[in-house]
């Protein structure tokens, strides 16, 4: 596990360019892992527009994002540059209603699936 400043710069660029970023296995259209699929489903439920990055197509990104976030697994969700968590945390926040509050707080446009 070597530190790679170049990939960190790339990641920082992603986070500057997009409000909602999901590092995942597969794509938003075709997730290739159940955990990634769960987070995609939740974002789609709220109709949040997000940028997906497929770590399976970029080994440097796959390792880099784990070091960058100090988080050992994929998927990883970022909102406005802040690391929100992986599948467990996002699912839990969805269940408790905290996810909706987070979107509001961050000023991310969304459609409430319940209302």
């Amino acid at each position, binding site marked *: 596990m070597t530190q790679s400043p170049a990939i960190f710069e790339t990641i920082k660029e992603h986070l500057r360019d997009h409000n909602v970023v999901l590092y995942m296995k597969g794509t938003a259209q075709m997730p290739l892992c159940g955990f990634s699929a769960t987070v995609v489903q939740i974002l789609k439920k709220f109709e949040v527009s997000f940028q997906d990055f497929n770590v399976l197509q970029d080994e440097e990104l796959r390792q880099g994002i784990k070091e960058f976030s100090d988080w050992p697994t994929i998927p990883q969700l970022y909102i406005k540059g802040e*690391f929100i*968590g992986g599948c467990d945390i996002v699912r839990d926040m969805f269940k408790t209603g905290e996810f909706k509050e987070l979107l509001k707080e961050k000023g991310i446009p969304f459609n409430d699936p319940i209302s």
Partner: protein
Amino acid sequence: MSMKPDEIMHLIRQDFPDADISIKDLMGDQNHYAVVVKSKAFSGKTRVQQHQMVYKSLRGHMGTTLHAMALETVIME
């Protein structure tokens, strides 16, 4: 790529001596677990920090030897 529940328990226990730890082998394949850790050590930490603490206790196994572990952390009152 698998890990016995006892090993997981042992590693987490080292960092969280006070914790209630429950480990469920979801598919009976020693590869898909649901783990709940309840500890006083989580007090005052964000959820991300709580999970990071548990992942650190697993000493690099998370995401490698241990492929799928759903984690829930609970602050012990």
